[in-house]
């Protein structure tokens, strides 16, 4: 992993189109500004992790739900 130190209002470039700027540092919270082309999706990692976990949970469905459907 590449590690860079940045101060408030400094930024880094990823490629030549993505800029990530440090907008504010408040305690252990850092506010980032992200400038990227529309085609680049930006998400919090937790969102991805939650969806991955949900997909795995969905796979644990057992066939007993079919019985339930019949009952209804």
């Amino acid at each position, binding site marked *: 992993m590449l590690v860079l130190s940045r101060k408030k209002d400094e930024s880094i470039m990823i490629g030549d189109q993505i800029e990530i700027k440090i907008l504010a540092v408040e305690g252990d919270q850092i506010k980032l500004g992200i400038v990227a082309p529309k085609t680049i999706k930006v998400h919090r990692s937790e969102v991805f992790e939650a969806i991955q976990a949900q*997909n795995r949970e*969905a796979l644990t469905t057992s066939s007993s739900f079919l019985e339930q459907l019949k009952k209804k």
Partner: protein
Amino acid sequence: MKIATKFLGEVEIDEQDILTFKQGLLGLEEFKKFILIPISEEHPLVLLQSIEQEDIGFVVAYPFAFKKDYSFDLSEEDIEQLQIENEKDILTYAVVTMKETLKDSTINLLAPLVINLKEKFGKQIVLHDNKSYPLRHPLESLEGSAK
């Protein structure tokens, strides 16, 4: 060809109907080939079955049946990857997490499955997290028609 399915035993499928999810589903990237098989006539539920592995099968449903005004924009990247030329070729499903009771079951409206029926490509896309579509929307809130 015949394939073994998770819930419906052996099912005869038409190879032409096989969908390719180039990136797989999130967290399950290794499975790329799926087929849609209706589960029941009375319910709007469909099985998205891996043709590569029997126990990889997802219950999916039309999100619009649970949230009438459900809508989202596809990014240019998605449109390109799915080779979408016409909006009419798109089918949208959402993954259902079935629990012991329907009351506890949920549908994932945050990461729908977008399928280009014409080119047979599918992708699970992640909607922008500032929108109000939840990862676990209660299944019992059936509000639309089950078309």
